[in-house]
């Protein structure tokens, strides 16, 4: 099965559990299980090749310009992790089906789980470090959903937030580190990076890259001092804890350390940072775990400790330690997942996981007892279980390690950690399962159904088998994965055996087990001491830190954003002006190359009226109606200017938009105050005027400079001009650009326009649905109203004009391809024709005759345009390539036929629909019961107008 498919399967399958939950919890769980099984089988098909030492690859250039390629590769290490993720994932899915209660939304659970699983598989199979980062962030996000799955528990939400903050911050550091790494090597492909050890370690950027990458790995793998999030993530349902903290999430950090081991390890920095962090974490986690009364808390800190152990082994940088690390990753995953599941069973059946309230369960839950005890003995490092084997390898390696010249520090601390590790493992067995049967359990415990104990039982089977026949069962996997870690070099000598003779490691193991037993006997006294000792509470520190950060952020934000929009605008404009002035100062201005054109009398008159209108408008803007009239003049002059300067299309568009805009603003002004009060001081007006003046001067000077100079390089306009007729079949180059060359732009524009109209419609609905409606219905007009709101003259005139105006629209539309016109302008004209009816005959009259909803008109316009664009695919051309030909239909003259006209029809409909929907929405505000004449010129013989008038009177 292709690696793409293996990585994609969990994501694809994630849809099903949430959808199928309506078909029952079993269906939902089966969908998740089958997806995982399929991916697992696909992975196993690669097993023979992997064990032969081959590397499976799948490559796809995604964004080669950024160096981001969807390249996947699978070697021994990736194979080991992927099989842990998918294999244990399968068991978790089975276990969770029986663990979750009826009230829990199980569909969501499996969806989150599959998303998380997919992200994990993605991490371990990515060949591109940028791709790896994407998956890395995805695990942070999906684990947030999983940890916070019980949304009703505040601890769940807090734990999820803490996990996301810590691992997310680490992820940020990791991005930096990975980018530096890719920069050093010049490639973001792991396979390339792994071949460049010397280049990376000799680079001056080695240390920053190392620190940032380690920050990412340590936060993810809960290494000291970032270990605190892991215990708080225990508020998650137990299947999540079992999955995240045994085989997946926290192992991602270790995976990264192992993956980059060939190029990053072997330096003093690596040894002292990684091995020391691991050592401290290992000891600290083990000590704290002994004093946790919560079963999952104990397991959480034990996980922290074991992660520390593996980190330390990778930190040693020797090949033997790398083998031991790989082996312990396998062993820890098996026994820890089994232990979490057992703890979940105890919690599920006894309704508590407080060790102080448990005891004597071996009589009540014999199956759970056997499973949990075997797994815990393995965790303690007792032979003949698998935990013993890898722990012995670890102890053997520590005995050979010097830390700052001292041969005793590392083995000494390792033995202390091992003693505590044995102690808490024994406590897990003794205090929960041994002792007398109690009478005060919150619920009567008994063994659960096979569905729940089957998964941990399978894992414990592995624990025992790997312990007894390690070389046969785990040998090949360890060898392949370890070979991948050390980058294909020759493996050191090691043997996966229970008995190596009387070695130092054996003595250390004996000390650990005996010491652990003694500690357990002293537990009561030590516990009292521990409770009395002062220790920092990580959660409180974390929350205080977050609190301080939030307050600082708020201080900065509030200082900058005081809610004064004018200030934001002033700052922005001033900044732009300063920036532009800097550009002007630092650049050189070429000499003018174009001759100035003579201005005739008419343009000067137009210019003068524009200036006067603008000046008056600013001076008298407090009278809003007057300002609206004046801006109309400005718009008219602008459209005349377009016409004079050889842009008839623009002139037509501008003048029709002008009409629509003024009507729109009038409609709005109807409900708003007609005057703007004086609010700013003279000083503020002076300041605003200065800013505006400077900006205006700058913009004017800039465009003057542009207009008096020629283009430096040939423009692309020449291409459009040359191909307008040849390629687009039209002589109006502007229209051909709109519907053909830049048709995609136009397509986007009509969609934007349609969305704008729909936004207006939605806002109207929202406002009219609120208490505003009552105000509007009872509102008295603040200006004197016309005696007859639908004067007969106007009604007659607009009715006569309607077909004429529509015909003009049709004419403008059809000639658009060759002469000024086109869909935009025709749409505006048609819209104005219809608006006239609303104005003259009233809203009620017009909307009664409105057969097609404007939403549908917008939609059909966009669809027609899209269909025209797609149509060009059938002839094998790109989207929106237009085609044209000539048709001769007697008695008509030969006329041209172009698909672009069909596209223009879409534009036309979208514009008509959008303009009318916008205005109609605004007009709905004015609707009042009984307002205006209901029957403007509505000739209906069935109606007895006289009678109605009488009854109204």
């Amino acid at each position: 099965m292709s690696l793409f498919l293996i990585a994609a399967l969990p994501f694809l399958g994630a849809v099903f559990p949430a959808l199928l939950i309506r078909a029952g919890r079993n269906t939902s769980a089966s969908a998740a299980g089958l997806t995982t099984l399929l991916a697992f089988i696909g992975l196993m098909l690669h097993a023979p090749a992997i064990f032969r030492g081959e590397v499976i690859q799948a490559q796809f250039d995604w964004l080669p310009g950024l160096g981001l390629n969807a390249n996947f590769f699978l070697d021994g290490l990736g194979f080991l992790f992927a099989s842990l993720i998918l294999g244990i994932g399968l068991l978790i899915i089975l276990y969770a089906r029986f663990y979750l209660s009826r009230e829990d939304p199980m569909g969501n659970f499996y969806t989150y789980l599959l998303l998380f699983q997919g992200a994990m598989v993605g991490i371990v199979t990515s060949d591109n470090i940028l791709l790896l980062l994407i998956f890395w962030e995805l695990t942070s996000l999906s684990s947030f959903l999983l940890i916070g799955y019980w949304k009703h528990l505040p601890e769940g939400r807090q734990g999820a937030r803490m996990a996301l903050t810590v691992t997310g911050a680490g992820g940020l550091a990791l991005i930096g580190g990975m980018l530096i790494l890719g920069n050093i090597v010049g490639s973001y492909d792991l396979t390339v990076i792994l071949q460049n050890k010397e280049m990376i370690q000799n680079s001056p950027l080695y240390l920053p890259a190392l620190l940032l990458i380690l920050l990412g790995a340590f936060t993810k793998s809960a290494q000291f001092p970032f270990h605190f999030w892991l215990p708080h993530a225990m508020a998650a349902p137990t299947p999540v804890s079992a999955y995240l903290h045994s085989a997946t999430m926290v192992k991602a950090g270790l995976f990264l350390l192992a993956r980059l081991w060939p190029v990053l390890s072997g330096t003093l920095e690596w040894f002292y940072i990684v091995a020391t962090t691991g050592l401290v974490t290992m000891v600290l986690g083990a000590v704290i775990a002994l004093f946790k009364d919560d079963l999952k808390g104990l397991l959480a800190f034990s996980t922290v400790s074991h992660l520390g152990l593996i980190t330390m082994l990778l930190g040693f940088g020797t090949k033997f330690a790398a083998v031991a690390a790989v082996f312990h990753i396998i062993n820890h995953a098996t026994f820890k997942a089994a232990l979490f599941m057992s703890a979940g069973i105890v919690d599920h059946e006894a309704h508590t996981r407080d060790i102080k309230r448990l005891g004597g369960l071996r009589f009540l839950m014999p199956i759970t007892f056997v499973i949990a005890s075997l797994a815990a003995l393995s965790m303690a490092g007792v032979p003949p279980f698998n935990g013993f084997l890898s722990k012995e390898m670890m102890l053997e390696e520590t005995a050979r390690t010097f830390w700052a010249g001292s041969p005793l520090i590392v083995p000494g601390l390792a033995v202390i950690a091992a003693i505590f590790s044995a102690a808490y493992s024994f406590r897990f067995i003794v205090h929960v399962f041994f002792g007398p049967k109690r009478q005060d359990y919150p619920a009567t415990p008994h063994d659960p159904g096979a569905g729940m104990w089957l998964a941990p039982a399978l894992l414990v089977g592995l624990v025992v088998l790997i312990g007894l026949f390690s070389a046969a069962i785990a040998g090949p996997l360890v060898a392949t994965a370890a070979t991948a870690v050390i980058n294909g070099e020759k493996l050191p000598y090691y043997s996966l055996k229970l008995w190596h003779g009387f070695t130092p490691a054996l003595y250390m193991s004996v000390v650990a087990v005996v010491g652990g037993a003694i500690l357990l006997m002293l537990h009561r006294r030590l516990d009292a001491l521990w409770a009395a000792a002062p220790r920092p509470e990580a959660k409180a520190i974390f929350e205080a830190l977050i609190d301080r950060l939030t307050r600082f952020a708020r201080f900065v934000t509030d200082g900058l954003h005081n809610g004064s929009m004018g200030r934001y605008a002033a700052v922005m404009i001033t900044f732009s002006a300063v920036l532009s002035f800097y550009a002007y100062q630092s650049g050189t201005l070429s000499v003018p190359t174009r001759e100035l054109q003579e201005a005739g009398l008419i343009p000067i008159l137009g210019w003068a009226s524009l200036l006067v209108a603008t000046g008056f408008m600013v001076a008298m803007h407090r009278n809003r109606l007057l300002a609206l009239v004046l801006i109309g003049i400005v718009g008219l002059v602008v459209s005349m200017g377009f016409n004079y300067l050889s842009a008839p299309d623009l002139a037509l568009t501008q003048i029709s938009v002008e009409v629509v805009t003024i009507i729109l603003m009038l409609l709005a002004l109807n409900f708003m105050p007609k005057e703007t009060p004086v609010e700013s001081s003279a000083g503020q007006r002076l300041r605003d005027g200065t800013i505006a003046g400077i900006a205006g001067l700058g913009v004017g000077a800039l465009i003057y400079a542009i207009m008096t100079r020629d283009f430096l390089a040939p423009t692309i306009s020449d291409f459009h001009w040359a191909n307008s007729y040849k390629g687009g079949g039209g002589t109006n180059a502007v229209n051909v650009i709109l519907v053909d060359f830049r048709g995609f732009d136009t397509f986007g524009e009509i969609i934007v326009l349609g969305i704008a109209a729909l936004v207006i419609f939605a806002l109207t609905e929202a406002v009219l649905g609120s208490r505003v409606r009552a105000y509007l219905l009872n509102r008295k007009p603040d200006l004197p109203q016309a005696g007859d709101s639908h004067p007969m003259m106007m009604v007659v005139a607009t009715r006569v004009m309607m077909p004429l105006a529509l015909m003009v629209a049709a004419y403008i539309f059809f000639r658009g391809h060759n002469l000024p016109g086109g869909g935009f302008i025709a749409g505006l004209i048609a819209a104005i024709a219809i608006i006239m009816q609303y104005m003259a005959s009233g809203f009620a009259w017009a909307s009664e005759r409105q057969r097609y909803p404007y939403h549908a008109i917008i939609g059909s316009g966009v669809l027609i345009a899209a269909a025209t664009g797609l149509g060009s695919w059938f002839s094998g051309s790109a989207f929106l390539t237009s085609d044209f030909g000539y048709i001769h239909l007697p008695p008509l003259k030969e006329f041209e036929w172009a698909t672009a006209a069909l596209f223009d029809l879409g534009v036309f409909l979208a514009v008509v629909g959008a303009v009318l929907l916008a205005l109609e929405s605004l007009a709905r505000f004015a609707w009042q019961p009984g307002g205006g004449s209901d029957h403007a010129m509505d000739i209906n013989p069935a109606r007895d107008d006289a009678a109605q008038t009488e009854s109204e009177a």
Partner: protein
Amino acid sequence: MEFLVASAVGVLTAAGIYLVLRRRTFPVILGISLLSYAVNVFLFATGRLMSGAPAILNKYEEVAHADPLPQALVLTAIVISFGMTAVVVMIALGAYLSSRDDRINLTDDGTAAGDDA
């Protein structure tokens, strides 16, 4: 001619910015409209000015013509600026009707107020 257009663009920009810096919604909307004119004319003028030479091909002879590309861009810009104006007008109207207040500055509790600009 160039000077007329350039000065008109400058004046429209200045007037638009001045009105945008006001404190009530209506003048700000008018200011945005003036700015739209200024920007549209600016874009159009980057194609250089030319009178009496629309960008229409003559099938039989080579003719002088204005630059069609800025015209096409400005045409859609005009229509889009109508859409934008309409949305802003609607938001302003909805806000005014809901709070009976058309000031644009916000105080801390999110209501409109006319304090220091």
